[in-house]
């Protein structure tokens, strides 16, 4: 288990290998389908983004509402592939980490390698457990999108596994050939 800090540094990204279990602490940003569409448009038009993309980690999540006195509700990952077509432009603009679940497209995998980034998976369906690792949650953009708005999160020991590292390895591909029965 490796403890890493977000935003990610070059050294951290370089040290991560597909299959590594990590505990992420620091600042990450939420963005899923609707927010991606807006962010991508902003990148395309050269507009300033609501947060610094350089080194940033985006978490594909639409959390459930916070109960009184809590920062957030349940907050597990959503399916990453829906963000695939909009991801290469964000990687080109400086995005360094993504947290979601499921395989990425060939284009995203090669963009991850080209731009020296990393893709993590968190456990899909473990929303209550993952929500507890989020200590602060601030709405920073696209209020009208509700759960799909962009939130700035402070996470502590947020568990994830490296799927695609910056060296071109893919954990789903690696486990694809394994046998689980003798």
């Amino acid at each position, binding site marked *: 288990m490796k403890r890493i800090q977000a935003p990610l540094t070059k050294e951290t990204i370089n040290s991560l290998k597909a299959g590594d279990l990590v505990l992420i602490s620091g600042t990450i940003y939420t963005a899923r389908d609707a927010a991606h569409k807006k962010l991508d448009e902003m990148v395309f038009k050269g507009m300033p983004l609501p947060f610094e993309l350089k080194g940033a980690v985006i978490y594909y999540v639409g959390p459930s509402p916070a109960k009184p006195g809590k920062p957030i509700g349940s907050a597990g990952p959503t399916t990453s592939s829906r963000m695939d077509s909009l991801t290469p432009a964000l990687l080109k603009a400086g995005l360094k980490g993504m947290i979601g679940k499921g395989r990425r497209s060939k284009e995203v995998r090669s963009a991850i390698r080209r731009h020296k980034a990393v893709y993590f998976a968190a456990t899909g369906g473990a929303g209550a457990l993952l929500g507890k690792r989020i200590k602060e949650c601030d709405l920073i953009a696209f209020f009208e999108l509700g759960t*799909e708005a962009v939130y700035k999160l402070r996470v502590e020991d947020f568990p994830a596994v490296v799927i695609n590292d910056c060296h071109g390895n893919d954990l789903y591909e690696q486990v694809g050939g394994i046998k689980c029965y003798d």
Partner: protein
Amino acid sequence: MKNIPVESIIQEVKKACIDSNCVLRKDISLALRRAHRRETGRAREIVGELILNSKIAKKEMMPICQDTGITCVFVEIGDNVHITGGYLNEAINEGVARGYRDGFLRKSIVEDPLFRKNTRNNTPAIIHTEIVKGTGLRIRIMPKGGGAENMSRVKNFSPNSTVAPIEEFIIETVRLAGANACPPVIVGVGIGGTMDYAGVLAKKAFFRAIGSANEKPFYDKLEKTILEKINQTCIGPQGLGGKTTALAVFIEPYPCHIASLPVAVNMSCHATRTKEIIL
């Protein structure tokens, strides 16, 4: 004639939405514990996380999964029941809206599939109503998340088809879903009816408890065979390898046209949430 006031429907639906989303079904909880004993390494850790997650959710009454779904509702209403003080569908939708508001559940419904503006109260629910004999009202609630739902498929087979290609279609659906459907999954299969009805059958199948036998021995055996083959794919929990790719396969057959053999495969994750209300 039995009178049922809408207010009792609203209250029960509200409660069912909250309970089903926060408390993992007992049969699924037991199936996860069995999987935990069977698995090793990463697969065991993931299943352990899901078990711990369900404990946190229950203790804090927070959703098992943040995707608290589109609310699918299956109603069986006796022909001697009179709903008083309002309309059945409006009462169900009001119960859903209150449950999602008061239970701090996520509102995931957009009012138009192309323009995508959130309705902010998780309505409308998808309501299937059947009129049956008697004075009973049974309402079954199933909040259905999008991740697994998106990986579901329907195919029309030739009526001359053997069972083997249907089996392969079901297994291939699980394989194509991979990690997207959040394995360990539960697979609902509707065989027969029409293209749309096969989907309803597949969804209704999720009300069955894991470990319960299919009423029809042929389909019971087929369910077991397919489950074993799915687990031999070694896709495993979260698609990261292991023995537990699916917890159950449920098949619902139905009569169909001489020209037709539709098969619907509805995917669901470990957070298959259902609740029955009897009024």
